């Protein structure tokens, strides 16, 4: 069967009506947004569906948009069906105060370290994760370093102000 973006989206929409909050196709890859309540049922469905066969969790990572108030933190799942040679991306967003997401380790053991990394970098707590602790950074670190409020360079430097380089300077600015 030849899978297309439309077939994939229609299949999920049919199984879980209203679950896809947003969808687009940047550079041809189907990108959907759903809620954290529905992400695991959706992934389970596409994994076990005999036609879709999305058997492979390619990548899982966090992302932080400080400007999206109420839905600052996100988790991005890159999925792949090897049999159909089809890839898509699905995202969930939630508030930074309530940084909780369900674990995907129940579906793929590969998610274990990817979720630990996401926790380490962004502080997303994956409920049901068997061993959620820091993985790359030291265990007693008390920040989540990939959040945008942690600037990589000394905040007093003015020569690298983003406003001069095509951005409105939102990156980390309001946290200074």
């Amino acid at each position, binding site marked *: 069967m030849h899978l297309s973006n439309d077939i994939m989206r229609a299949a999920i929409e049919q199984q879980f009506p209203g679950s896809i909050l947003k969808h687009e196709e*940047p*550079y041809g*890859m189907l*990108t959907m947004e759903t809620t954290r309540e529905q992400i695991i049922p959706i992934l389970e469905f596409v994994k076990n569906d005999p036609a879709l066969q999305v*058997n*492979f*969790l*390619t*990548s899982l*990572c966090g*992302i*932080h948009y400080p400007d999206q108030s109420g839905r600052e933190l996100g988790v*991005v799942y*890159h999925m792949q069906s*090897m049999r159909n*040679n089809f*890839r898509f*991306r699905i995202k969930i967003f939630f508030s930074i105060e309530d940084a909780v997401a369900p674990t995907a380790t129940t579906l*793929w*053991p*590969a998610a*274990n*370290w*990817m979720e630990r*990394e996401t926790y380490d*970098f962004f502080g997303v707590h994956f409920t049901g994760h068997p061993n959620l602790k820091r*993985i*790359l*950074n*030291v265990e007693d670190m008390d920040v989540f*370093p*990939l959040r945008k409020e*942690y600037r*990589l*360079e000394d905040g007093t430097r003015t020569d690298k102000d*983003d406003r001069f*380089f*095509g*951005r409105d300077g939102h*990156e980390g600015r309001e946290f200074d």
Partner: protein
Amino acid sequence: MQVQSYFSGLDTIDGELITLNLGPTHPATHGIFQNVLKMDGERIIEAEQTIGYIHRAFEKLGERRPYNQITPITDRLNYCSSPINNMGWHMTVEKLIGCEVPKRAQYMRVIMMELARIADHLICNSVIGVDTGALTGFTYIFQEREHIYDLYEEICGTRLTTNMGRIGGMERDFSPAFHTKMKAFLTRFPKKFDEFTSLLERNRIFIDRTVGAGPISGERALEYGFTGPNLRAAGVDYDVRVANPYSSYEDFDFIIPVGENGDTYDRFLVRQEEIRQSVRIIEQAYKNMPEGPYHADVPDFYLPSKDDVYTKMEALIYHFKIVMGEVPVPVGEVYHAVEGGNGELGFYLVSDGGRQPFRLHFRRPCFIYYQAYPEMIKGSFLSDAILTMSSMNVIAGELDA
């Protein structure tokens, strides 16, 4: 007493279990890896890895660097095959900016990437030999890796952390010295490699040590997110070069070798065959090298030649804009994957139009498949665990990012 009940069915030596720290700096692990093993005599009951010893926060660094300055970061992921990482990154940016690379540059890239794959697999396979007690093949075949590094040097000036190529193509064309060395390599290497093969592939001691060591089934490997030679050794014929061809891989005739048992011997054999296939690809690409420019016409990203910068106004402006990061970049998100030495190396790039990525995530194959290590060595001997690790080819740089 808990320990007693957990291991009651086991034949313990003096009823004692030992906690053994394998690493962080153990000569047999070829890198900074720590494994805390629970041992029953020589047998491993449980293992837990600690990683992150050379974590350098690449994803954070990537958010503070212009696109062209991220290439040196990618060198240091899998430093046994840096050119593949470099090209993968360039292709990701090219996808974002919608840049079509000329055929000649694509073929040049294929040659460099396949050389890198050979170098990567040579290290892995010769180190498997070392860990079984055969040092000769390693010292012998490392000369060939040096010759591959000589070829790198001709195209980018460096040997290990290559920073090879540019966004839009290659930095320079193949030099006359490159052609001489390349031709010499293509005649000499297959013979040398056959000698290396004859040392190990049907060696009785080697086979006894590697067959059945650290096996994993195809289904389990997929669940664990395996890609690359380790997945293919378990019998799954997934290769990014064929599934989603990039850089004109569809032009070349090569096969994807697969194993059956997913054990150390199969991983070794898959890499052996991949080296032969890589030589085939290089021969085809080198013979059919198209004429034409070696980089695309993308003045916003590809630095003009220094001569032009000093003499031409336009080139000076472009040079300034690139160096100062004043180049407009489209807003969007791309995922691009290449077949790295160890599997699918993916770049997830989110651009908000700024001069650096808004978010850059590396899908690092080592990081993902190293999770399966405790499961693969459970119940085996310590010496087999060492072999399993070297045959998985876990590269610390890629593991820890």
